[in-house]
């Protein structure tokens, strides 16, 4: 699958300063259901630089998880597939790579951790065995060496008494510990890219920060680039260098984290920010007391081709043009892309 030069191909994202390790171009992933084709990812492009943290934000169903699974080529075959675009890792095209070569990349050069630590570990094998398996597959370690290295990985992710824990089963560990184990599995082979799909969503708030800090610390130590997928702008602010906002399978805005928070250009991004719980006067998060501002309406069905801007039906800025023509993704400020016809009006409106 090569880059398709279609009319609505996005322009190259903000020029990359460092060297790009993972490059996604015009990625299109579709699911084929009885009620029609779902365009889950509809022309997504981004570059990930060596050692950087890139956040992909959006509501559930915007295609952010599917884009991650597409990069890993883990879309279930009978449900859907990548229908266009390209994914290159260190200059190698992944989308048309034979499965056995792709297997050597998964869990080795590019790793992934998932949202549900409670169900993502195999309940019938010890956690040590689950870490060691990666090492045996990718690094050809023998049984004993792999087991020893698994214990080291457990101590790396700061699990107390790693030797005992290695012999335990997932159900004997707490949610936070299980996510640490998932991180240990993902980082066991020292990958260049770690894709983390909502890694903290299922965890208690107190544990969330610990897990995020652990990921960032290990990233610094091992030099891994991270694609962090989240719906939580709080997480974005704490972790990311660059942010991509996705809506209905497409990228609607991209900028550095400071730039995005200071000058959000897309009405959808503004909507997301509006629904972050603000700090109350006492300085505490008022998540319980303060009422969140919600974006009215629902994420559109991705079954039909949407002629104009997919966000138009929910957008207070939407004009007549918005539902007719797709807004191009264009730089509106330095290194800041947004896909909106009404950027000028949005920027002029105080938040």
């Amino acid at each position, binding site marked *: 699958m090569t880059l398709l030069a279609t009319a609505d191909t996005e322009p190259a994202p903000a020029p990359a300063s460092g060297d790009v390790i993972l490059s996604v171009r015009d990625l299109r992933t579709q699911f084929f259901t009885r*009620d029609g084709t779902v365009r889950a990812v509809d022309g997504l492009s981004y570059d990930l630089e060596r050692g950087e943290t890139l956040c992909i934000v959006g*509501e*559930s169903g915007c295609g952010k998880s599917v884009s991650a699974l597409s990069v890993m080529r883990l879309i279930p075959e009978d449900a859907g597939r990548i229908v266009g675009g390209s994914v290159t890792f260190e200059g190698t095209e992944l989308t048309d790579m034979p499965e056995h070569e792709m297997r050597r990349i998964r869990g080795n050069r590019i790793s992934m951790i998932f949202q549900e630590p409670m169900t993502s570990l195999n309940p019938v094998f010890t956690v040590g065995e689950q870490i060691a398996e990666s090492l045996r597959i990718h690094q050809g370690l023998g049984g004993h060496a792999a087991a020893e290295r698994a214990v080291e990985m457990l101590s790396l992710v700061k699990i107390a008494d790693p030797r005992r824990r290695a012999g335990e089963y997932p159900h004997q560990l707490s949610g936070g510990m299980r996510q640490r184990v998932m991180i240990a599995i993902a980082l066991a082979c020292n990958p260049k890219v770690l894709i983390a799909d909502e890694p903290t969503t299922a965890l208690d708030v107190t544990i969330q920060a610990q897990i995020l800090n652990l990921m960032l610390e290990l990233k610094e130590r091992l030099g891994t680039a991270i694609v962090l997928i989240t719906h939580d702008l709080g997480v974005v602010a704490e972790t990311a260098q660059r942010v991509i906002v996705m809506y209905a399978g497409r990228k609607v805005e991209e900028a550095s984290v400071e730039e995005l928070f200071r000058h959000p250009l897309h009405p959808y991004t503004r909507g*997301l920010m509006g629904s972050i719980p603000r700090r109350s006067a006492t300085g505490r998060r008022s998540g319980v007391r303060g009422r969140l501002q*919600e974006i009215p309406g*629902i*994420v559109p*069905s991705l079954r039909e081709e949407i002629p104009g801007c997919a966000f138009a039906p929910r957008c207070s800025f939407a004009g007549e043009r918005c539902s007719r023509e797709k807004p191009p993704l264009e730089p509106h400020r330095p290194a800041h892309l947004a896909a909106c016809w009404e950027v000028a009006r949005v920027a002029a409106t105080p938040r």
Partner: protein
Amino acid sequence: MAVTTEVAVPVAPRAKSGLAFWLGRNPTIVIGVAILAVLVASAFLAPWLAEDPLAFEPTNRLKRPSAEFWFGTDQFGRDVYSRVIYGTRISLAVGVSVAVLATALGLVLGIVCGYYKRVDAIVMRVMDGMMAIPSILLAIALITLMKASLTIVIIAITIPEIPRVVRLVRSVVLTVRAQPYIEAAIASGTRNLIIMVRHILPNTVAPLIVQGTYVCASAILTEAGLSFLGAGTPPEIPSWGNVISLGRSFFQISPWIIFFPGVLLAITVLAINLVGDGLRDSLDPRIARRM
């Protein structure tokens, strides 16, 4: 957290009603019912479709299938085709009677068990014991102790089928009883009998129909098995099992005596199972898990 809007995937509205549409989605039921219709018709029309199944002609012993004897003849020169057609009556009668008796008795016991804890403790122990006994041996024991007749065979096959029905009904009753609206009905003083009839009974209908089809299929197989062993329907009645049993000694030279009733038996059981599977899958997915 913040963005809580759920993905609502609107399902395109479709006409999902109508028997024709429902049957179209469940082709196994259509096939099963069609086969059963033919079998039931031949059972009723046996006197017109077949000759006397008991008439024997010693000169025609062990004849191969031919234009005159479609399914050949047995060692007494009886027409296997006629015997098999009449055998349809026996098999269907046994299957339906056992299914009706076992589900009816199982329903009563199951509801009572699900409702009265004290009865439950005793009855379920008895059911556990009965389930530990291989059903064919239980039937054999009953038949050995009584004079052989079709009624005794039906009773003997029914008894070992009851425990599974009781367990099924009991589990439905216990699930339904835990529902808040039943607790509310109990709390507001509604009489037990009314609760049973109005709330619990309707919930048992779908699983019972499905279970009934399986009981029916298994009863037909068991009757044939018992007759085959010589412990079933009295030998003078031309049931499929009896026809096969008589063909045992001659199967090397006259395999048709066994083949035709055997195949019809398989087709009948297959048809009933197809209907059962189709009903199970379409009536209520929750039933599937309970079985």
